């Protein structure tokens, strides 16, 4: 499926094309949402609202090739709105005693790694490493400066290396 073509059709009012687009990015949307709101029910709410908003506003999409970035931006706004409403209460605080985290890396799930980062790094890491957004695109989506994105990525890299790759700070490239 060509995202640009489908997005162009969706822009012209093609509902089926819009549904195809959502099916293509639903996993991406869930991963981004989960990096901001911490439980599945909130992810579901945020994604539902995002889909509705995207459908009714898709005529405002300027560049069909950037559909994914565009809808991620809507989703992030939706998640942030939800957090503001809930005053950032963590319903399930991460706690060693209540999770199944082990250092055996094959058992680490994606969010066990992401959740270990400072909150301000989690979405940036998701967008950069998983969604392949550029620094410039992330800056635009999160409405922060490119310098801020770079410095946060710098901070995230060190900790991620330890968590995900089992590297210490002195590890060089390939082991």
């Amino acid at each position: 499926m060509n995202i640009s073509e489908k997005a162009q059709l969706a822009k012209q009012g093609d509902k089926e094309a819009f549904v195809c687009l959502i099916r293509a990015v639903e996993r991406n949307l869930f991963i981004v949402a989960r990096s901001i709101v911490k439980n599945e029910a909130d992810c579901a709410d945020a994604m539902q609202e995002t889909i509705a908003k995207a459908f009714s506003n898709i005529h405002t999409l300027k560049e069909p090739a950037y559909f994914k970035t565009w809808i991620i931006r809507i989703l992030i706004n939706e998640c942030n709105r939800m957090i503001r409403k809930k005053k950032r209460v963590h319903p399930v605080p991460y706690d060693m005693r209540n999770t199944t985290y082990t250092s055996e890396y094959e058992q680490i799930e994606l969010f066990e790694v992401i959740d270990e980062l400072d909150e301000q790094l989690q979405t940036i890491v998701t967008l950069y490493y998983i969604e392949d957004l550029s620094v410039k695109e992330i800056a635009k989506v999160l409405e922060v400066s490119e310098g801020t994105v770079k410095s946060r990525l710098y901070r995230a890299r060190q900790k991620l290396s330890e968590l995900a790759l089992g590297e210490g700070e002195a590890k060089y490239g390939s082991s």
Partner: protein
Amino acid sequence: MDHHERVDRDLKQFLKTKSQNMAIPDIVQHAVDNALSSLPESNVKQRTTLKRWRWTAAIMALIVLLGTVSFFTVPTFAQMVRSLFAKDYTDIGLLRAQELGLVYDPHIKVKDEGYKLVINEAVADPTRVTMALQLFDKKGEHDRNKLVFVDPNNITIKDDHGNVVGSMYDMGLTNDFYYMVAFFSKPLQTDKITIEGNIRTLGYQKEPLIEGNWDFSFDMDMKEANRQTQIEKLSGSYTTPHGMTITLKRLTRMVQGVRFELETELDDTAMARSPGDLWEKQMLSFHFETMEGQEIYSVNPRKEGYKDSLMTSEHQVIGNGKMRWSYTFKYLPEHESYRFVLDAYSVAEKDGSRISFKPSELTEPKTFDILKDRVELVGTSLEASLSGDSTYETVITLYGELENEATYEEWNAYDPAGKSYEISLRGGYSFVNTLPDNWREGLISMGDRYTQQPIEFRVQGLEQIPEELTLVREVVDKRYKDPDWSVLLNEQE
């Protein structure tokens, strides 16, 4: 490719693989299905109001869980080490430090601006320093988010000559304290270290920064930890079918970790394939297993779901074609025999494989096979340069499946006149076709076919799509998975 780029590539591989393996939870999938089936037929500037939903049961479950969580008190560092161990967290080195009485209480309490920084527990040996740091607010509650270790905040480690030998970072893992660690790729050789904290700001996200002074400094005696260090000489040597000789050197057991050292040497034929400094770009893949064939730890495997315990690793050139490697693991068996198995290795070599195509004829994907690797060109376009300088560059989108490694490969593009252009790569890699019981099989996937996200070869400076384009892989990160060697270690009488 510099260090950060390599780390980024590895992180992308790891995180993308994890994201691909993750199923969307049912309640989220239902919400998406519900949203899509509730869409009106026309989307012309209509605002659809979807009824929001919530499962009462989910709320109830959360309330119960919150109540349960609040029963717990904050554990001590030692208790947490125990709890980690009880949960199969295999940081046996940290546990051993505790058992040997090497958990040190520096009695650090620094108060300013209503916040109190406390350090009661720290462990140091030649492999690493581990420390629990807590920050209490005016109400006496530990704030896990207020302290961020970025400039001007830092914690450094100095040896007994005052040289900075490392800096600590927050490893995460627990909300109970800031879990500060520093790893040393070469065992520290000092009788005393000094931990110096420069903490001048507190603040989190968009909160206003609180400026103050929570600096601290304390010494840690390393003599007992040094006394616990034992060196075992290793023996065993093997030459691979393609000319790499591997020689095991020694094992250094320290309180919190084990350092494993070996040397490699390439023969003349192998060196001829990797002229200049290409031969220095190598990677080893190996694993340790029990006598029953159970995996202990693996390094750089293609195995699906492997056990990792690596804290640091490094390699350095010690002669022409010769390299010395060292790896520090959290643990290797002390009292049982186990086996070292060499699985594969890679060396950057000159390649020259060419892919020529006419962009205008790329109306459907075109596949090329080069040295056991497969590249599928998907499309060509002209796009604004990522450098943001208002120029354009040719972008080739493609998928690929590599038998070889990707870390050190280099590509260039050539126009019909033979002019060369550098290629920068954008996109993600992941492992595919890996197996849970095989360390050697599996491929590196360039791009993500599942989400239909090919990678991009961005040809810098090529401002018009030429009639014909040639891509040349100048350097291949050649992977050899044909070693057939294992060594029995810690042989018991």
